[in-house]
């Protein structure tokens, strides 16, 4: 089985993806992560405005068979939360890199310490 790992993003070892969009970064979970979890039924997200520390858990993804925390790959205040996935958690399964995104963080920090697509692909082999 092969998983989608888009080229223009960075990845955390805990299976989050990070995409820079100007002064914010968008965060979600990877195709591999959503497949491991299976049918996602609940997503818990923090409120916009809260500030996250890199490496701390910010949300919970619960599937029929498992429950998993989601971690902040960088520090910063939350600029936006994808409320669509609270009502339609299946979006995380269907489109993990698109409509299934989770939060946006305001930060200028470098993403260089995170895995590049090749390194992430190696990790999930």
């Amino acid at each position, binding site marked *: *089985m092969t998983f989608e790992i888009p080229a223009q993003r960075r990845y955390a070892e805990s299976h989050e993806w990070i995409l820079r969009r100007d002064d914010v970064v968008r965060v979600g979970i990877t195709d591999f992560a959503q497949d491991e979890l*299976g*049918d996602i*039924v*609940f997503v*818990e997200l923090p409120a916009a405005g809260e500030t996250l520390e890199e490496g701390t858990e910010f949300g919970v993804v*619960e599937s*029929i*068979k498992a*429950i998993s925390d989601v971690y902040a790959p960088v520090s910063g205040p939350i600029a936006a939360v994808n409320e669509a996935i609270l009502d339609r958690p299946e979006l995380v*399964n269907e489109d993990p890199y698109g409509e299934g995104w989770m939060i946006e963080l305001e930060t200028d920090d470098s993403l260089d310490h995170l895995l590049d697509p090749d390194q992430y692909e190696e990790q999930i082999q």
Partner: protein
Amino acid sequence: MTLQKPPLYSAHRAADADFTDFGGWEMPVTFDSIRTEHSAVRETAGRFDVSHMGEVVVRGPDATELMDRLTTNAVGELEPGDAQYSCILDENGILLDDTVVYRRPERDGYLFVPNAGHDEQMTNRWRRFAAETDFDVAVENVTDETGMIAIQGPEAVDAVSSVASDSVSDLDRFCARRIGIAGADCLVARTGYTGEDGVEIVFSATDAESVWDAFDGIQRCGLGARDTLRLEAGLLLSGQDFDPDDEPRTPLEAGLEFVVDFSTPFVGADALRELEAAGVDERLVGLRVDERAIARAGYSIVADGAEIGAVTSGTMSPTLGVPVALGYVDAAYADEGTEIGIEVRDSVADATIVDQRFLAAQEGDT
């Protein structure tokens, strides 16, 4: 320990299934997704490999008497081709396993189906009891050389009739007959573990691929969907909702009195009679979580500031769209409609005691 592989293992590999260890067997847990597989069974039909279930054949002049001693239901009532759900208890009335007992059609004796990983223990139990009581029986564990699949769903019976040598649409619930499928001699029973109509099919392991392939086009389903389906129907899972070591329960606590026939001389009857007279302290109940949280096995059930029980099985009901669970609570809280709490990680989620036949209750089919 090496995991046992079902005879269809390579077929499941080729179909790109995910696998799990269940009762010492390496079984497919999902083929597509639990939701897809689950709804196929509720709406049309699905096929399951259930070869991890045990198969034990009991024959001989004293077979009926031995079966009547070691299972709680009335074995003497079975005609050839009849099946019944039953419990297997120890001397204290504790559930060792649940099973389906078949009086074999066109063969002598009985077939009973213990749960995955219990076949050897039950075979030994049957043989030991037969030796102690001097019963004239032969007990044969045929689990390894037997395959078993289930075809379940509203269209399952038609699907089986269309490929079988003989129709099964006139087969009554809990009845079985011998039928040819894809050239294989099969025992087909109108039984299942999903809350839907359907059949279970038992055959020689060497015929497994041809029988399975005869149902090509029907959604493959893994143990993940088997679990959500049985939970919605309120059916118990041996080893999880009761277990002699980790969750010792009597049929009275587990709500299985309906397969206990006190007019038969089963092991555990005396203890059960005493417990029945004294009244049970805890009962199995259905639980509906009224918040966005799944109650999972082991979570505490609380009320009035105290722990009153624990969850044994829980999931998100794909059909009903609400989290459902089974668990044992203090009998004082077991009435339907009682509002309780379930400790989910750091908080307490509101939940309600409901009819454990979640799906049937919802459909008004009570």
